[in-house]
């Protein structure tokens, strides 16, 4: 009985205590409030690879929103930015980020490729960005979730940690693309499989709300796209360091 009361009370207290923290971290672009990044799900394979073998192989599996077009594209998209940030923060670790992005793929298509990915790349961690095309095509949410689970389980069996990454916040198209059910299912799958979710949707929304980026811009602004990807790369790096309990060495090493 006591426990039944204690749990919601503790939950409410936690919720309330987080709000001031969110306000305090506003201001600088790229900053992500604690409540959007903090989770309790750990990245055990990453911890092991970094501590025992001093290496870390990350594969990014995703669709069109994990790449940028143009000659600068490959090195300014978030997978490359993530690699750069991790190398700076963990100079004694051999960090490698492989980007395996394929455009116009639904989650089901991507899930089918996971076994081959695990065998070919032997990643310690897979960052799986997905959901956008599923929402555009309005794939059955049930089938979407089943495909996500299948993919996550394949990766776990292959000995890789997983971070799920949901859709971008896109204010100009969001009335036409119903992201809700897909974002909900990604959160549920992450909770059930105890893996971190990089909530790109909420994070970019936060950046837009505090005025860090003008995501309403319609024109061909490559600078904006590059800055957003840089921030996403930094955000995932913090999430990995946090969830794998790594200790950044950057200040001492640089």
């Amino acid at each position, binding site marked *: 009985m006591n426990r039944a009361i204690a749990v919601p009370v503790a939950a409410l207290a936690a919720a309330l205590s987080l709000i001031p923290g969110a306000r305090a971290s506003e201001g600088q672009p790229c900053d992500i409030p604690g409540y959007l990044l903090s*989770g*309790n799900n750990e990245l055990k394979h990453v911890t092991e690879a970094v501590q025992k073998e001093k290496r870390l192989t990350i594969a990014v599996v995703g669709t069109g929103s994990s790449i940028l077009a143009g000659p600068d594209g490959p090195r300014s998209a978030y997978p490359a930015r993530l690699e750069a940030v991790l190398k700076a923060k963990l100079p004694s670790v051999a960090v490698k980020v492989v980007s395996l992005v394929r455009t116009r793929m639904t989650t089901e298509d991507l899930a089918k490729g996971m076994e081959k990915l695990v065998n070919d790349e032997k990643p310690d961690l897979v960052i799986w960005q997905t959901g956008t095309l599923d929402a*555009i095509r309005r794939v*059955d949410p049930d089938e979407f979730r089943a495909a996500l689970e299948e993919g996550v389980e394949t990766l776990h069996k292959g000995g890789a940690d997983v971070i799920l990454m949901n859709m971008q916040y896109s204010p100009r198209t969001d009335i*036409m693309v119903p992201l809700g059910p897909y974002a909900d299912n990604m959160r549920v799958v992450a909770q059930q499989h105890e893996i971190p979710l990089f909530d790109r949707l909420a994070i970019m*929304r936060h950046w837009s709300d505090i005025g860090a980026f003008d995501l309403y811009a*319609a024109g061909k602004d490559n600078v904006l796209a590059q800055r957003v990807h840089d921030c996403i790369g930094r955000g995932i790096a913090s999430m990995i360091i946090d969830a794998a309990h790594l200790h950044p060495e950057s200040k001492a090493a640089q």
Partner: protein
Amino acid sequence: MHAPVVTTGRDLRLDLFRGLALWLIFLDHIPSNVVAWGTIRNYGFSDATEIFVFVSGYTAAFVYGKEMRERGFIIAGAHVLRRVWQIYVAHVFLFAIYLAEISYVATSFENPLYAEEMNILDFLKQPEVTIVQALLLKFKPANMDILPLYIVLLLLFPPILRLLQFRASLALGASVLLYVLTWHFNWNLPSYPEGHWFFNPFAWQLLFVFGAWCALGGAQRLGAVLQSRITLGVAVAYLLFAFVITLTWYLPGMGQYVPHWLEQLIYPIDKVNLDALRFAHFLALAVVTVRFIPREWPVLKSRWLWAPIVCGQHSLEIFCLGVFLSFAAHFAMVEISGAIWMQLLLSAVGILVMIAVAGLLSWYKRAEGRTGSRPKKTPDADLAGGEA
């Protein structure tokens, strides 16, 4: 005919809650709207859709049930079909607005950050297919799933209403059976380009038929249960439970307080097939509501609640207007400003426009009644609550 005539006069609570549901649906349909944080879907499992479907089932049974008793199955059935046609036309009208919006985006938006999101424009590459699929109710853009659900529910309503009048429990039992079989065999209608209907009519019919059942005497049969303190306690406890679970969706750090077995038990909470948890959440809300807002509550007739009630009394028009206004609000946010003050302003203006139009429609109706230009023989589906 021995069907019980239970409901005499209008229950303004129905109009009130349908009006409020229309406002909430409008607010939820404006993307990125801070005001939408205040809507019920963020505090529990169910949302305005449940209220809307239930109230519509209730009012459909109330209006057409009376007519079916007085004028027979054929006449009442024909009027239901006429209503279906009106809703279909309304849906096509909304689709035209959607096409305008998407075409505008196609010509004005080229931000490289959103190359992937631009795949939404694929639908414009084959307009002949997209438009025909929309007319067949297979292609349903975002926010346009509710009217097709109503069309199917109403289309099948006359025989269900007949059965409800003669064997109410049997009709409700058949509805529950269809719901169970739908879950078991995964029945649903197909969609274009893939997948199935977002509001599965075979599952959502349960709420519609339950509403109709309540209207035809079920609510009175449940009277003792509704008045019980135990029911109220269970309902309040369940609402609190749903609230705490919902909090964990927005604050990932709180996920640790939800035990794993509970997660396995409750997830996924399936909106497509009207998850039992959603249905239960709606029931709990209803129990608490009827407990604290009695039918004869004087405030219902005061001017304070006139605005939502008048909106609820013109539901089809106000629903369509709400979808249109959400597009307009989105356009204003994109073109002028998406700042929070703008979101507040657009939400307020939208609701004021809905109230003004609903007031105007009431005025038309009264004016027509006074001149006697349109003698009312057919049931007034709007006034007693249309079905949209």
